């Protein structure tokens, strides 16, 4: 065994599936001096990997998760450690049968073979399922079970044989040391019970222990250890006779949140139905204290009894099986159930690689190695897993536990794409909350903020504008016809939108101009009072963000970004700060923001101010300080909804007074409060405006998104080289607006695609469309365009299809709907494409 090292380039802590895969991929990407530590013995150190059921169902509604899972399956397969046995999800309820149609849609989108099964077909494949209990099934032939421990061993061996890795088992990390860095603490060493290792980079792959390790360095990894109960029952003749580890497909009994997985002669039965059982890290025993392993906590049988009954209902023979092994197994839950990956915001060169399942382990190893090597992953856009997506207020234990408690039982649930959280609400509110409450605002959560999505006080407009409802409950859930009515009203008169959840940063100082130029694609060094809408790119030239920058003074810029993007964007802007000369400040809490738009907007606001608001005096894209009803504000002529008007910024303390002043003056102008349903979807979509996380992802570049300007600025910026190359390269995809020709479903009424990211754009014949880079065409946003009387979608299409008039189709709930390409390229607007209204 090698001597304990005093120094290493990179220390990876945790030798579960995740840490092992990470060291394998780091080594592949040329990291030559890696140390892997685990407090337990190898190959099974006592983490969650050691007792996982190890199966993989690849179909998910999230692209990011599917990309990670399918890549993982390829890696397991390449190592010869995958057993592809197929898997069936069975339904006991009509709602679940509907959900299977959604899963078919996702499977089609990602190109994963899948099939809906009749009850007879299910029983043909798994004869011991009681046909009277189920309504049908969803079959995925590529469902597999893997050997996660041996995969880990082989990943380590790969790195060791390359001469890049030293591994130390039975070595506990006691502390992680930092030194003062350029603008935040930086990693300097890892202290273990066998000595101290100086290092530049640390990756925490400690599963349920990760929060404790992060804390050692002064950082946070927001997850909680949680119980997933599993029992092993058997033996059963029917299984023993097969003489195979997995002769039958793995069964997920979706409506009881339960699975049955053959393991040679017996069956593993696992549950996500029991009460959420959360633990604190400090309550997890050490390897020595634990009766089994630290992550196999004592079984609490009372919590499992209902599942036993349900399992016997589905497969009667299970009743006679002996429960040979039963655990309260530990796994990691985050506040939103997605992994926590990437650089921690608090400490430089400290990486989080946690809340990852066996099914994603090898893919995450690759993704993280790319991230650590190239500055951003290449295999897929990681924004849903990026640990910096969480705001500071999301990182405390109460928030983590409350949200984990809320979503644990949704693990196998049917979760609506627009579904809202029930807990931890009303924690961050704009200053006019009391007023919007009175108006019957229906709030959606936006980055922790309460944001009115529509107002019940506008219910009268539904009739006025003749807006129709939706027939199918799924389409109408978390939606209101009031949104469309508010949209029409804004276009006809004017609307007041509460956009206080906007994330607002200010950067200032003598070095600010070169800094802001480095961050943004478009030129920022403009006269004071001018604004810039700009992409922010990864080094590879994909989207990292898009945002608006305003020059407030010679040496001060304000950056405004979306409510969901603030954490990731703040990290990126802070991470790139120079050692001195630029000061960064998050002003979100200090600033309230409203939007007033519509034909009457300027006239209304003019009654409150002496500042000349005419187009001639105050043109599009300009910013001015102005007194509105005696309140100091900053007015910004801009629009995300396609009608003239202003974003108005004021101190939060004056936010209520400003709301009152605007609404009072608004009485003479037919002003109505308007929710984010208009701002975020209907208004935006009619104008073809792109949204980060929907149209804009690191997988695509500004040329493809139609956001490339005619000229490229002289100053250097992150991603410039790749951006220049993309401008010269043949176009592989082009963002386009699609118009639905019919929404009529087979049952004779209209359906309304969600634009949740999993709806594929197909040829009229139903074939998937994949561009030359392997990217699939799918709906990135969908919604009503009330002013056009149309239903629209956006999608990237290969250039040969991205032509106005091309006939295609979109799959929604496993049915195809005809669409036509209506716009493509830079201008995707179908409503007022010349922007004449914004200039009015």
């Amino acid at each position: 065994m090698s001597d304990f090292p005093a120094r290493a380039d990179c220390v990876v802590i945790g030798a579960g599936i995740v840490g092992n895969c990470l060291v394998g991929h780091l080594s592949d990407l040329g990291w030559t001096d890696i140390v892997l530590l685990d407090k337990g013995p190898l190959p099974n150190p006592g983490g969650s990997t050691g007792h996982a059921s190890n199966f993989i169902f690849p179909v998910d509604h999230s692209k990011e998760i599917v990309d990670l899972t399918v890549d993982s399956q390829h890696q397991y397969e390449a190592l010869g450690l995958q057993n592809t046995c197929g898997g069936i999800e069975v339904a006991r309820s009509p709602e679940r049968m509907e959900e299977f149609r959604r899963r078919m849609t996702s499977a089609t989108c990602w190109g994963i073979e899948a099939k809906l099964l009749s009850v007879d077909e299910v029983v043909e494949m798994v004869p011991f399922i009681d046909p009277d209990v189920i309504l049908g099934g969803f079959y995925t032939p590529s469902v597999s079970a893997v050997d996660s421990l041996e995969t880990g061993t082989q990943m380590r061996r790969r790195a060791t044989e390359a001469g890049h890795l030293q591994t130390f088992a039975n070595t506990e990390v006691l502390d992680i040391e930092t030194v003062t860095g350029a603008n935040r603490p930086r990693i300097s060493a890892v202290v273990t019970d066998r000595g101290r290792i100086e290092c530049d980079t640390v990756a925490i792959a400690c599963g349920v222990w990760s929060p404790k390790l992060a804390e050692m360095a002064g950082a946070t990894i927001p997850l909680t250890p949680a119980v997933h109960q599993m029992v092993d029952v058997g033996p059963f003749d029917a299984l023993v006779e097969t003489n195979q580890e997995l002769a039958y497909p793995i069964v997920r009994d979706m409506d009881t949140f339960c699975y049955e997985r053959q393991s040679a002669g017996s069956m593993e039965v696992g549950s996500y139905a029991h009460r959420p059982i959360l633990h604190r890290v400090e309550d997890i025993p050490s390897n020595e204290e634990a009766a089994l392993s630290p992550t196999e906590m004592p079984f609490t049988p009372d919590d499992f009894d209902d599942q036993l009954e349900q399992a016997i209902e589905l497969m009667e023979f299970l009743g006679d099986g002996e429960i040979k092994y039963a655990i309260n197994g530990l796994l990691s839950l985050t506040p939103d159930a997605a992994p926590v990956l990437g650089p921690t915001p608090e400490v430089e060169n400290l990486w989080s690689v946690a809340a990852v399942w066996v099914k994603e382990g090898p893919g995450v190893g690759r993704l993280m190695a790319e991230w650590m090597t190239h500055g951003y992953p290449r295999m897929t856009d990681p924004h849903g897993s990026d640990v910096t997506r969480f705001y500071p207020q999301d990182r405390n234990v109460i928030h983590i536990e409350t949200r984990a408690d809320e979503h644990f039982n949704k693990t196998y649930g049917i979760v609506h794409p627009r579904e809202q959280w029930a807990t931890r609400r009303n924690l961050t509110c704009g200053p006019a909350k009391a007023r919007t409450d009175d108006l019957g605002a229906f709030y959606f959560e936006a980055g922790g903020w309460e944001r009115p999505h529509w107002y019940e006080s506008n219910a009268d407009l539904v009739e006025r504008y003749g807006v129709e409802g939706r027939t199918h409950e799924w389409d109408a859930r978390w939606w209101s016809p009031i949104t469309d009515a508010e949209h029409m009203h804004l276009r006809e008169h004017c609307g007041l939108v509460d956009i206080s959840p906007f994330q607002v940063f200010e950067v200032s100082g003598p070095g600010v101009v070169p800094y802001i130029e480095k961050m943004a694609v478009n030129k920022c060094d403009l006269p004071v009072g001018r604004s810039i809408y700009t992409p922010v790119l990864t080094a590879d030239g994909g989207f990292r963000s898009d945002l608006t920058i305003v020059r407030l003074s010679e040496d001060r810029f304000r950056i405004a970004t979306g409510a969901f993007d603030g954490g990731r964007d703040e990290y990126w802007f802070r991470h790139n700060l120079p050692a001195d000369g630029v000061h960064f400040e998050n002003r979100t809490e200090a600033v309230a923001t409203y939007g007033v738009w519509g034909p009457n907007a300027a006239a209304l606001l003019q009654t409150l101010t002496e500042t000349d608001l005419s187009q001639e005096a105050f043109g599009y894209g300009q910013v001015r300080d102005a007194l509105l009803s005696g309140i100091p504000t900053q007015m910004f002529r801009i629009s995300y909804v396609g009608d003239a008007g202003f974003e108005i910024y004021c101190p939060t303390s004056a936010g209520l007074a400003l709301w009152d002043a605007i609404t009072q003056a608004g009485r003479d102008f037919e002003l109505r409060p308007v929710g984010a349903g208009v701002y975020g979807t209907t208004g935006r979509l009619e104008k073809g405006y792109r949204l980060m996380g929907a149209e804009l992802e690191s997988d695509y570049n500004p040329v493809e998104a139609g956001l490339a300007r005619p000229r490229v600025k002289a100053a250097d910026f992150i991603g410039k080289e790749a951006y220049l190359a993309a401008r010269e390269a043949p176009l592989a995809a082009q963002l386009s607006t699609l118009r639905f020709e019919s929404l009529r479903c087979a049952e004779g009424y209209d359906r309304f695609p969600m634009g949740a990211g999993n709806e594929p754009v197909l040829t009229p014949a139903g074939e998937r469309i994949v561009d030359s880079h392997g990217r699939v065409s799918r709906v990135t946003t969908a919604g009503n365009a009330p002013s056009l009387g149309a239903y629209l979608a956006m999608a990237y299409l290969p250039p040969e299809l991205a032509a106005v008039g091309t006939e295609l189709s979109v799959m929604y709930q496993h049915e195809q709907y005809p669409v036509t390409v209506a716009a493509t390229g830079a201008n995707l607007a179908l409503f007022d494409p010349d922007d004449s209204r914004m200039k009015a």
Partner: protein
Amino acid sequence: MRILVCVKRVPAVGSRINVTDDGQQVDTAHLGFTTSPHEECAVEEAAQIVERLDGDDHAVVVLTLGPEASAEQLRYAASVGGSEFALVTAEGGLDWDPQRTAVAITDAVRELEAAGGLFDLILFGNESADGGNFQVGIRVAHALGRPIVNGIKGIDVGERGFTARRETDAGYEVYELEAPCALGVKEGINLPRYPTMKGRLASRKAQIQELDCAGGADAGGQSRVRLHRPPERASTTVQLGDSAEAAPAVVDLLDELGVL
């Protein structure tokens, strides 16, 4: 046939056992509980004896003395062959001294027998996994005036009682006991079954009779001064390699240890 099995709820510990700060208890904060292993075998043995008999008017009565939570161990017994259950609620948890425990159990046995008739056989574990006092069974049998043999690894039903085997270095000692009698059994006498799923579900409906036997608080008088954790023996694991490639290293090591 009526058989009584006396079981004890004990913590399921790992290789390191922590002690509470006051030194009076095993720290069970992270631990689950189980039935003391010898007694798990006792329940199994009783179930097997009864299963071998004709007729169905047999009973395996399982008794435990302990806190309310000991009902968990009775339900477990219900899922692996027990048929009637008695919980002697012991104030102060599990830490009665063996003499007081024996008095309470003796009282409980008398109460159960007064209602349901004599037990042909009372089974104890050889010793409890936590206390390890080796006394309770013998004291109870003595108080009831019944014969008892400890260390039993085999039981057969005979004409008038039971034949019991005890392992010795040289072979077996064989005892014949006339019913009613008592035996202390040892792990290895059988391989206890696991509960079936149905068994577990049925056990939820098991009726548990609670008995209040104070056990003569003045009995015994043995009291705990303090628990100590023995100094840890450090052990390190050395990985010799994996798969077939590890074979030469294994051979070398066995050679070094002198076992080849």
